[in-house]
């Protein structure tokens, strides 16, 4: 395979894309640096509102949770490696599998996808920060506190133990006494707030802050994916807000929403939970599709084939994603005719994914692929995700699902979907964008080890689970009897888990080595087309020196033989950005981004404190609300800086 051969055109330093030759460049750079600099030290760290520093923390935190969730999976695999194993008992096992699911879904997958969006979207669309920088900081702190709450509780033997799906009545006050499920419900509250904040940031930033000329039909597919995901979050999360609050109230103040003995209903929880829980899968998967488009475009060196079909497929997936939730409930007493609609929707959703896969194959077909680690992860996606997608169509069938449901077949199915469909693209994305974020390339040699170990380990771990499930092994069992005949395959599965662990270890080593002694990346090491590659690596705090003007879908390729047009005339002595129209990105207003402040952290401490205290006493809500109200008053206190445009003088400014 011919890979990593640099292109002559790009090696010519005078013809690099984004090379700017504006005379006042140095002066502008100095002024932007001084106005956007947030300083260093602990205080600067705690008060930062720059989307890049917040998103970096977000990503690092999410990867730490990924490792913790992986260690939990490792413990489960150790326990299940042989029948009647006594490594961990049922009490700890139930906590661990609940922690694994909750961590991977709420603390790793959704946050890491949003966090990468919060880092890249502003740079990719050519703006300086997200729309509401302080709110963005609040989102991170809430997420962090939620995760810390869960793990502190776990280490004090108060980890939730009723599953990440927390079915009532098992998770209710009668069958889960103690504080374990309260911790779970409140952790959900934290992550809901963080996810909704991230979604609002992404939608607003994309709709109003795109570089002039980047009309909706010129947005990179990654940005489309982030936009669509953010809308899904806004529509799906209210359902879990309602249900987790009802559960917390059932547990804390004796409402009986889910108690059949008092007129409540156990099935209500399942509808509410899965109305969120199924879109949740697509909230994880759609950003990964966006990442894949970025990877495939960069490494085949041609635009993604069928851009309109790709965008429409993403939107269709998002719509259909809301019509699938009952396929988690085929074994409940719902009428067959009603269930059949969900079979239809669950089958139909394979089509938009199929269209995207075909478009990517057509892209590769007519491209010039370079088999970098990042691209290998994208190729790995095809091999793994298609298996998960096809078993997904299988479990859409009601009769088959009634055999496969709640068995290891389903465990296998959704790990193929989520690891193959989201984690592989995520690793590909890390290999693609790590040089941009850190300024250093990851080692390709370690990268290949990382990929192949992961690919092999993944298949050794999860493929045999299909068979185990059909052999009758249910999910969420802490042990099984020797005469069941599941011992051999379980041992194989556990050995596969060891391979995955070693792959992640190689990845961490790769990151560590690169951060210390990686090859400097330069602005655009992959000769990719999108705007994030026009700025330096790592990008300065203000993103782009000049806001670019976009004239096509692949601005840096279009500008390969010339220069990138830019916007001048924005103020550099304050955090000024440009607001543009939703459809065509025509300049409309100037806008000042808020600067660093401690208020988001304070609000997270008081608001989060209220949420945590509420586990122990309803008074937590009262006290926390009053404290939060004080912080919010400070937050929204009108301030007018001397040079601020007052509304009376605000006007549309045309920027040529």
């Amino acid at each position, binding site marked *: 395979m011919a890979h990593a051969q640099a292109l002559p055109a790009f090696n010519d330093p005078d013809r690099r894309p984004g090379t700017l030759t504006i005379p006042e460049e140095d002066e502008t750079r100095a002024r932007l640096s001084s106005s956007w600099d947030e300083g260093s030290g602990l205080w600067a760290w705690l008060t930062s509102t720059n989307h890049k520093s917040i998103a970096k923390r977000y990503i690092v935190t999410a990867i730490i949770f990924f490792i913790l969730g992986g260690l939990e999976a490792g413990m489960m695999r150790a326990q299940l490696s042989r029948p009647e194993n006594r490594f961990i008992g049922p009490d700890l096992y139930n906590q661990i599998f609940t922690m694994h699911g909750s961590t991977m879904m709420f603390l790793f997958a959704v946050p890491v996808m949003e966090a990468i969006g919060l880092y890249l979207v502003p740079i990719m669309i050519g703006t300086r920060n997200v729309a509401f920088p302080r709110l963005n900081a609040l989102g991170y702190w809430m997420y962090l506190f939620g995760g810390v709450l869960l793990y502190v509780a776990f280490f004090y033997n108060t980890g939730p133990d009723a599953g990440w799906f927390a079915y009532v009545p098992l998770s209710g006050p009668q069958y889960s006494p103690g504080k374990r499920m309260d911790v779970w419900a409140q952790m959900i509250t934290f992550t809901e707030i963080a996810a909704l904040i991230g979604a609002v940031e992404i939608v607003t930033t994309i709709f109003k802050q795109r570089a002039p000329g980047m009309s909706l039909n010129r947005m990179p597919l990654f940005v489309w994916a982030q936009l669509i995901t953010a809308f899904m979050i806004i529509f799906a999360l209210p359902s879990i807000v309602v249900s987790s609050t009802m559960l917390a109230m059932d547990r804390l103040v004796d409402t009986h929403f889910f108690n059949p003995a008092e007129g409540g209903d156990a099935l209500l929880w399942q509808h509410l939970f899965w109305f969120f829980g199924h879109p949740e899968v697509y909230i994880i998967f759609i950003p990964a599709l966006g990442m894949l488009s970025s990877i495939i475009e960069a490494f085949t060196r041609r635009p993604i084939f069928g851009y309109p079909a790709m965008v429409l497929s993403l939107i269709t997936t998002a719509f259909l994603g809301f019509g699938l939730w009952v396929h988690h409930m085929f074994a409940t007493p719902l009428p067959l005719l009603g269930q059949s609609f969900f079979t239809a929707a669950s089958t139909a959703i394979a089509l938009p994914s199929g269209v995207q896969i*075909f478009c990517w194959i057509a892209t590769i077909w007519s491209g010039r692929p370079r088999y970098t680690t990042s691209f290998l992860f994208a190729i790995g996606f095809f091999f793994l995700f298609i298996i998960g997608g096809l078993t997904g169509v299988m479990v859409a069938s009601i009769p*088959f699902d009634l055999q496969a449901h709640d068995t290891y077949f389903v465990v296998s199915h959704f790990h193929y979907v989520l690891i193959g469909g989201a984690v592989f693209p995520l690793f590909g994305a890390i290999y693609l964008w790590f040089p941009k974020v850190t300024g250093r390339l990851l080692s390709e040699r370690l990268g290949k080890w990382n990929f192949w170990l992961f690919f092999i380990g993944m298949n050794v771990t999860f493929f045999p689970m299909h068979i185990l499930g059909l052999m009758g092994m249910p999910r969420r069992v802490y042990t099984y009897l020797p005469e069941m005949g599941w011992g051999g395959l379980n041992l194989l599965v556990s050995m596969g888990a060891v391979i995955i662990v070693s792959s992640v270890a190689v990845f961490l080593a790769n990151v560590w080595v690169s951060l210390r002694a990686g090859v400097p990346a330069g602005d655009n090491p992959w000769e990719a087309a999108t705007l994030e590659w026009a700025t330096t690596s790592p990008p300065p705090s203000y993103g782009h020196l000049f806001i670019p003007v976009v004239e096509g879908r692949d601005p840096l390729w279009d500008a390969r033989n010339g220069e990138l047009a830019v916007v001048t005339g924005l103020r550099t002595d304050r955090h000024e950005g440009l607001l543009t129209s939703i459809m065509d990105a025509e300049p409309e207003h100037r806008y000042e981004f808020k600067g660093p402040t401690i208020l988001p952290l304070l609000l997270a401490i008081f608001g989060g404190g209220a949420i945590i205290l509420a586990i122990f006493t309803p008074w937590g809500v009262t006290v926390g609300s009053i404290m939060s109200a004080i912080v919010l008053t400070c937050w929204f206190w009108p301030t007018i800086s001397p040079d601020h445009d007052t509304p009376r003088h605000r006007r549309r400014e045309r920027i040529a």
Partner: protein
Amino acid sequence: MIAGGLRRSAARGGGILLAGLFIACSGFQSALDPKGTKAATISQLTLFLVITAAVVYVVVIAGLLFAMRRASTRPLAFAHDDIEEPDRERTRIRWVASAAAASALILLLFMFVDVSAARSLSQVGGLRPLRIDVVGHQWWWEVKYPDLGNPHNTVETANEIHVPVGRPVFIKMTSDDVIHSFWAPNLDGKKDLIPGHETRTWFRADTAGVYRGQCAEFCGHQHAKMAFFIVAEPRAKFESWLTSQQSPASTPTDSLAQAGERVFLSASCAMCHSISGTGAGSKYGPDLTHLASRRTIASGTLPNNVGNLAGWILDPQSIKPGAKMPPNQLDPAALQALLAYLGTLK
């Protein structure tokens, strides 16, 4: 030579695959070894789905590999510059559109096969069905054979369901505490037991045999050890089993067993368990009237023999940690008497 090598490795691969399927079929709790009409229909459907999915997988991956191969044969240049050849791009559009159309057709076929299978499974066929009531408990199964004509003849048992071969069995289910799911894969798919709801399912065993099932919905500490057995037997054998189960427990005749009955009634056993014909009538734990006739104890966890029973009575928490049965302190004589008594509950 290369072809020979390929053939050999293909043969080896096929062997491994077959071995895998063989392993999968030999389990006694397995969806791949159908022994009832519903499970048989589902397993045919499974075979259809697996084969179609495998074909689709192979075709798509072949397309990907072909695309990678073609792309790698081109001189290294910037693809962005020459994608504007309209003919080639149009060919690609045709390919992608045909692939999407083919996918849509395959998905429609899937839908059609799914829905018709689901329809046929929902229709109870054949003889007048036998009705059985099942109630889920943490972590055991309460089983009742209601006799609507004569309530005295209603049979109560636990964790073991006897059914006649060839006659449909209609099961009415609910749960006493949390959600459970009733699943005996050799006979049928699963159905949830939900507190406050009544669910129904039916199945028909076509071959005599003992089929293991287990709870499929996570239900707390001992979800893993909440199994049951379905004993499918010829009609006459089933009827005689039912008749014997309808009778109350026989009064023990030898003195050891009589002492055991006194132990049962005076120790904590009678607080939770019932034995018809005695004063023990609590419904908290499984009915023990015909305990000795069952194959296993502790919900399919241990074979039913004196040693296991003694261990279970003295220290259930070491066998099923978290189970609702407390440890019992009995002196050896009392234990021996109790075991002798329980042994008479045929």
